[in-house]
C-alpha cells in the first residue's frame, strides 16, 4: 500500500512516456447513491488515473447546467458529507486510485473545516479542490488540509496573470488545475476550446513549474483531450461524463455504456 499523501504524486511519477493522465469528475450520489462506488471502480478499470468526487451544493455558481443538474439530483437522493466519506471508504477497500473531493466551501464550513479535513483523510481522500476558495481565501482551509496530509489543488484561468500563476503553483500540491476557457463547466466543441487554449497553455508552461498540470473544462472526446492536453500532463473530464450517464440511465446497459465511453476517452476508438 502506498501512503495516502503520495498517491496523487505517484500517478505522475509512474506515468510512462507520452501518456496523458486522465482525471474523471463524478458527482457523489449521482445518478443514485448506490452507483457512485461502482462507477469509481469501473472508471479506474477503464483508464482513469485520478478521481474527482463532487460534493454536491445547491448553488454551484461556477458550474454549467450539466453539473447543476447532477448536484440537484444527488441532493434529492439524500447525499450527505458522511455518505461521501462512506463512499470513499468503500472504494479504499478495493482500490488505491487517488480521490480528490471537489466542491464549494459552504458545505465544508457547515460540517466544520477541521472535522471535514480529519474525516476526509481518515476515509482515504487524497486532495481537495474548492473553486470558490481561491488563494485570497485559502487560509480558511489550507492549514487543516496540510495537517491532515491532504493536497490542495488550486486553479489557474486564461486571465490569471503570470505572477498569479506562479503563486498558485507555489501553494498547490498534487497538480495545478488549468481552466481552459473563461466560463462555467460544460462540454464544448473541441475547436472552441482549442482556439483559446494554446496561448494559455504556453503561459502556464512558463509559470507553473513545480506541479504537474491538468487541463479541464470543455473536453468531451478523446480527440479533444489529445488536442487540448498535448502540452500538459493530462486532462479532466466532468460534464461530458455526466451527459453520458444521463443519456442512458436507468436503462440496463447504462453503466457498461459509460465505461465504454471512459475507455474511449482515454485510448481513443479502438477498432476491432
Amino acid at each position, binding site marked *: 500500500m502506498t501512503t495516502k499523501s503520495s498517491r496523487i504524486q505517484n500517478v505522475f511519477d509512474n506515468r510512462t512516456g507520452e501518456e496523458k493522465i486522465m482525471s474523471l469528475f463524478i458527482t457523489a450520489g449521482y445518478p443514485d447513491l448506490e452507483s457512485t462506488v461502482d462507477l469509481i471502480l469501473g472508471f479506474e478499470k477503464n483508464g482513469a488515473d485520478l478521481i474527482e468526487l463532487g460534493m454536491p451544493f445547491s448553488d454551484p455558481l461556477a458550474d454549467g447546467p450539466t453539473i447543476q443538474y447532477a448536484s440537484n439530483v444527488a441532493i434529492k437522493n439524500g447525499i450527505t458529507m458522511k455518505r461521501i466519506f462512506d463512499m470513499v471508504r468503500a472504494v479504499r477497500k478495493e482500490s488505491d486510485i487517488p480521490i480528490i473531493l471537489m466542491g464549494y466551501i459552504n458545505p465544508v464550513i457547515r460540517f466544520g473545516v477541521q472535522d471535514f479535513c480529519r474525516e476526509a483523510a481518515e476515509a482515504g481522500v487524497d486532495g481537495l479542490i474548492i473553486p470558490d476558495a481561491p488563494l485570497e481565501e485559502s487560509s480558511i482551509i489550507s492549514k487543516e488540509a496540510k495537517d491532515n496530509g491532504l493536497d490542495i489543488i488550486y*486553479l489557474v484561468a486564461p486571465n490569471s496573470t503570470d505572477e498569479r500563476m506562479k503563486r498558485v503553483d507555489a501553494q498547490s500540491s498534487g497538480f495545478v488545475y488549468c481552466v481552459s476557457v473563461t466560463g462555467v463547466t460544460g462540454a464544448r466543441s473541441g475547436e472552441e476550446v482549442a482556439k483559446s487554449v494554446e496561448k494559455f497553455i504556453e503561459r502556464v508552461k512558463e509559470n507553473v513549474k513545480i506541479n504537474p498540470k491538468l487541463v479541464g473544462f470543455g473536453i468531451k472526446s478523446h480527440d479533444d483531450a489529445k488536442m487540448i492536453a498535448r502540452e500538459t500532463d493530462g486532462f479532466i473530464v466532468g460534464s461530458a461524463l455526466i451527459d453520458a450517464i444521463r443519456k442512458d440511465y436507468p436503462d440496463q446497459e447504462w453503466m457498461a455504456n459509460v465505461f465504454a465511453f471512459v475507455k474511449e476517452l482515454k485510448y481513443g476508438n479502438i477498432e476491432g
Partner: protein
Amino acid sequence: MKYTAPDKKGYFGKYGGKFVPEILIPALEELEEAYNETQNDPVFQKEYHDLLQEYVGRPTKLTYANRLTDHYGRAKIYLKREDLCHTGAHKINNAIGQLLLAMKMGKNRIIAETGAGQHGVATATACAKFGFDCVIYMGAEDMERQKLNVDRMRLLGAEVRSVESGSKTLKDATNEAIRDWVTNVENTFYIIGSVVGPHPYPMMTRNFHRVIGEETKSQLQKMEARDPDYLIACVGGGSNAIGFFYPFIEDENVKMIGVEAAGLGADTDQTAATLTKGTPGVLHGSMSYLLHDTEGQIQLAHSISAGLDYPGIGPEHSFLHDTKRVHYYGVTDQQAMNAVKLVSETEGIIPAIETAHAFAYLDTLMPLTQRDEIVVVNCSGRGDKDMKTISEWFRNQQGPAEG
C-alpha cells in the same frame, strides 16, 4: 469609536471576503482599483453627485409623519423619502454609481440580477440614460409577482432573462448572473444590487448609498437641531439599511434597527429572517449569515415581499449584528401587510412591502419611546409595484368576493 470596516481584504470582522472562482479574481482586482481611484477623483464625484441631484432627484425629503405620530402617541416619526427617487426606490443611487464606474473601466455590457425588480429597473434606467446594452436576470416566480417592473425594464430597452432553476427567485437569479459574468468577464460589468457579493461590492454599494444617511443627518439638524434617537430600515440584502445607518455608526446615542422578513414566522420554515435564524457560511462570494441546512445546502427563503426573500444578508450587517451596534428583528408577512394599510391611510404614502416591514416594527418600538424622542424610518421604496400582491392579500382577508 472609530469605525473603519472593511479591512483591505474586504472583511467586516470575520464576514466578507472574495469567495469566487479564479476567473473572477482579476475582474475584482480591476474593479477595486478603479473604484479606489474614483474615491479621490473630483471629476467622478462631481458627475455622480450632479446626476443624483439632476436626474435622481436628490436630496429626497425628510417628512414629518404627523398622523402616524399621533397614532402611536409617543416619539416623533420622520420618514426619509427614498420612495421619491426617480424609479421609485433608493436602488437608483447605486445603479448610477456603478454604471459610471463601468464607463470609466471601458466595459460595454451591463448585467444585473433583481428580486422585486427595483434594482433591475434602476439598472435598466441607468443603461438607457447612457446607451448601454443591459441584461437583467430575474427568477421566474419574481417575474410573475412583479410583472409591472418586468414591463418597465423591457420598455427601457433591457433584456429580462427568466431564471427557472431552484427557487426561481433572487438567489437563483444571482447564480445565473454570476455564471454570465464568469463567461463574459472581459467586456461585462456586473452591477450588484445589494450590499452582498465579493469584496469590493459590499463596501462600494454601501458607499453609493451613504448619501441617504448623510442627508438624513443634515436635514434633521435643520428641522430639529439634533440627531435622531432611532433609525429603522428593512433588510433583505440590506442596501437601503446600510446606506441609512452608515453615517451614524460612530454616533453611539443613535439606536439602529434592521427589520428582516420573518415570513410566516422566524420559528417556521417559511421565513427569510437570516440573522434571527441563520448561521455563518458562504454564498455568492462572501461570508455572512445564511439560511442553510445541516449539510450546508442553501434553504429557500420565504417572504411576501419579492425584495426580501433572500437566504443571505450583507456581510456588514452580519458584523453589526454580532457587535450589537445594530439590532435586528423579524416581522411577519401579516405584520408587514398591516403596516402597508396603516401607513397608506395615515400618511397618504403607499410603501413598498419591503419598506412596510420597517414600519411594522413601530408597533413594537413605539410604546418604548418617549414623546421628546425622534424615530426616523427609511421609506426605501414605493408600493406601486406591489399593488397586485397587496390587492390580493386584502381581498383574501375579507373573504371571497361576492357575485
